[in-house]
């Protein structure tokens, strides 16, 4: 794992690591409820969409641009399904510490990416996408899905995880193809 990837993953991991415990209510922390998990999952998708828009604005690499377009398309579809579900259930997702930490981390990451261009940007974006999806997928699979109580939300997270795991594989291929060293 490259140094930049490790740093990228660590930034998100620090936020999700706390949630890993809180989603299950371990470590003395208050467990996240379904509405908080829904909010965080939606937020994580939205943040990746924003990273993708930045990539489309900056990168001239076709592999990176194709990946970014896929992130926008797929995460928008997942989040649209989430909105349809919360509308159907007539509930409101709840903001929480993890969502706020993710947003704060993304602000820093976008500032970092915004100062780059060319191959440096492509490599940093690709590494962040791989690290982000690795951590999000692990959290969704091991913490969120087991913790949620509403079957429809559990199903939605399961379907979303299928998509996110494909993204993780694509990101891994993108990192390799860019030969970032």
């Amino acid at each position, binding site marked *: 794992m490259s140094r930049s990837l490790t740093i990228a993953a660590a930034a998100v991991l620090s936020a999700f690591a706390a949630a890993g415990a809180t989603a299950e209510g371990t470590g003395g922390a208050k467990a996240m409820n379904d509405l908080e998990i829904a909010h965080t999952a939606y937020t994580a998708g939205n943040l990746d969409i924003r990273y993708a828009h930045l990539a489309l604005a900056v990168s001239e690499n076709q592999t990176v641009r194709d990946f970014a377009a*896929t992130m926008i*398309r*797929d995460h928008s*579809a*997942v989040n649209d*399904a989430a909105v349809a579900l919360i509308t159907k259930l007539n509930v409101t997702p709840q903001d929480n510490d993890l969502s706020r930490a993710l947003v704060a981390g993304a602000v820093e990451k976008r500032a970092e990416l915004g100062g780059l261009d060319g191959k440096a940007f492509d490599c940093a974006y690709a590494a962040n996408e791989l690290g982000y999806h690795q951590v999000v997928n692990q959290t969704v699979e091991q913490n969120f899905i087991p913790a949620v109580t509403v079957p429809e939300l559990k199903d*939605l997270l399961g*379907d*979303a995880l*299928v*998509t996110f795991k*494909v993204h993780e594989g*694509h990101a891994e291929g993108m990192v390799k193809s860019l030969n970032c060293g």
Partner: protein
Amino acid sequence: MSRSAPRAWLAVALAGWLLGGPSGSAQAAGDAAGPAVHRVVIDRFAFEPQRLELRPGDIVEWINRDLAPHTASAESGDWDSGELSRGGVFRQRFSAEGTALYFCAFHPHMRGEITVAAP
């Protein structure tokens, strides 16, 4: 309106139904009265079945079960479903014998194959 106009409209509508018609109207495969309709389900980022064998004139119907949008796009460029959201359906009729390779334009690792051969 001339007498031929309604017939022309009907012909266009029928052609549209056959080539890319409404969802949920799949004809049972093997119907002796018409072309067989073969369904390909897009699920978990894969075409299922991945390979199909048809008779000339048969129709393939793709339906997307994934949350993510997909396409069924011929490598030759001869046909393309366009974006299929979850539940979206696309139909394509295959008249000429041969093998058609296709893929998802959004997730190019997803690939499928259709072989058309006379009995």
